[in-house]
């Protein structure tokens, strides 16, 4: 024990936190109370903190890129991706060519009640069809409603951010910017 008892030091810590929280401003406006600025918390529905670019909020689907190859559904550890598709003849790319066979995606559902947000599906997708979006406000009152379908997943494409730069010293290939 030093000269000042630990009890007093403890009171000093909490007391100074009060002061720092209520009077966070410096300079001439030191004495203007502004607890909303000094507090570490934010008033959530009114103020929203922006999650980092990489935040794994929700999985967005770029429908046009998906070929219903089933890779994501197979690699999903929770078996929460449901894909259905069928083959169709499409007009040839070049005039006079043979008609191509393309896969048409009929159903792409992700059951967010099962999803563990591991990101394996996004990693394994070879066609840049799945992206992480930092969007996080997609809770539902009923658990069954968490099965989100293709159209809902596509809406989230708009919230997918641009890929950010890497830290210096990196030689990693910069990933492609998502379409849209």
């Amino acid at each position: 024990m030093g000269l000042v008892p630990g009890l007093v030091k403890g009171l000093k810590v909490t007391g100074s936190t009060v002061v720092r929280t209520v009077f966070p401003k410096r300079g001439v406006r030191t004495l203007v109370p502004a607890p909303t600025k000094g507090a570490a918390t934010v008033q959530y529905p009114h103020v929203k903190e922006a999650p980092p670019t990489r935040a794994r909020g929700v999985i967005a689907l770029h429908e046009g890129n998906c070929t219903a190859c089933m890779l994501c559904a197979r690699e999903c550890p929770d078996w929460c991706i449901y894909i259905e598709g069928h083959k169709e003849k499409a007009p040839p790319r070049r005039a006079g060519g043979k008609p191509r066979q393309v896969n048409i995606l009929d159903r792409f559902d992700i059951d967010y009640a099962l999803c563990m947000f591991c990101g394996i599906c996004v990693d394994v997708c070879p066609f840049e069809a799945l992206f992480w979006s930092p969007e996080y406000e997609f809770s539902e009152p009923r658990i069954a409603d968490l099965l989100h379908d293709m159209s809902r997943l596509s809406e989230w494409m708009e919230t997918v951010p641009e890929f950010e730069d890497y830290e210096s010293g990196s030689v990693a290939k910069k990933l492609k910017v998502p379409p849209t």
Partner: protein
Amino acid sequence: MIGVLSELSYWQVTSIRVVAGLVAVLLVAGTLVYAHLFKMVSFMQSRLGPMEAGPYGSLQLMAEIGKFLQKEDIVPRRADRFVFKAAPFVVLTSTFLLLVVLPGGPDAWFISNDLGIYLAMAVSSVSVIGILMAGWGSASKYSLLGGLRATGQLIAYELPLLLAVVGVVIQAETMNLQEIVLAQANGEIFGWGVIGNPFIITQFAGFAIFMIAMQAELTQTPFDMPVAESELVTGYMTEYSGLRFLLFFIGEFATAGVFSAIAAVLFLGGWYVPGLDPADNLFNVIGPLVLFGKVVLLTFLVFWVRFTFPRLREDQLQRLAWKFLVPLALANIVVTGVLKVVV
């Protein structure tokens, strides 16, 4: 106040007293809950506290009360129903009875009793019975442990509380709380009487003992073993829900307010502020407010300590009471008595 009220009829006087009592307990308790539990503590923890109900969350307590009233009043199946249900009222009764002797101004008091502080100390012990009733009646092991701890603790700390008051009584030469205030207002410290003689200066040891014992009586950290939420869930309150839990909750803060008021009267000069004539009629108006201000100050100390310190263990608590506080209080009495005779 009695002078004014004597012209009114009996039922008018009674209803004014009832309203004044309710306001004095509930409004003070509500303010303390908002100012200290909701806001000050939140700031202490770098957060804002309730912000949604009313401006800056000022109506949060109303919302809480509405929530508690809606809740089911559950009585455990094997509980002693009558004892279980009556316990919160016993605790609250003791709080209201404490208020009776508190002076709020030269004429603003409920009763002016020559045994004022004696009555207050006696009545404050009633809450022990309520807590023991709650602990026993709940038919829960946590409640029982909490109730027994509370009983042991409250009885242990009655003594230093009482002994700390004795010093003040010796100095003021009266047990009437009103006259204790006047003694402080008109007194002087070794011949220097500009600010009167608030006993916190001459009776500082008594004040410190009183505040520590009060912290224990209020079962606030570091003496909150009876409700120790990390050990006994909430001790004797574990099985309570709805309205009855609310009564305990309000009772806790109301008691904090009333005890702080007693401390303010005993040591900080009660409703008196230095520089004015204590007989001034003005004090009947600002007196209660002055007292309230002092109460807020003292409860701030109580809650500052409560939200800073860890909790002692039961045996350490008893050791502190019997081996440290009681001898210190006795020494204080001796010194005060000797000085009273000598000076």
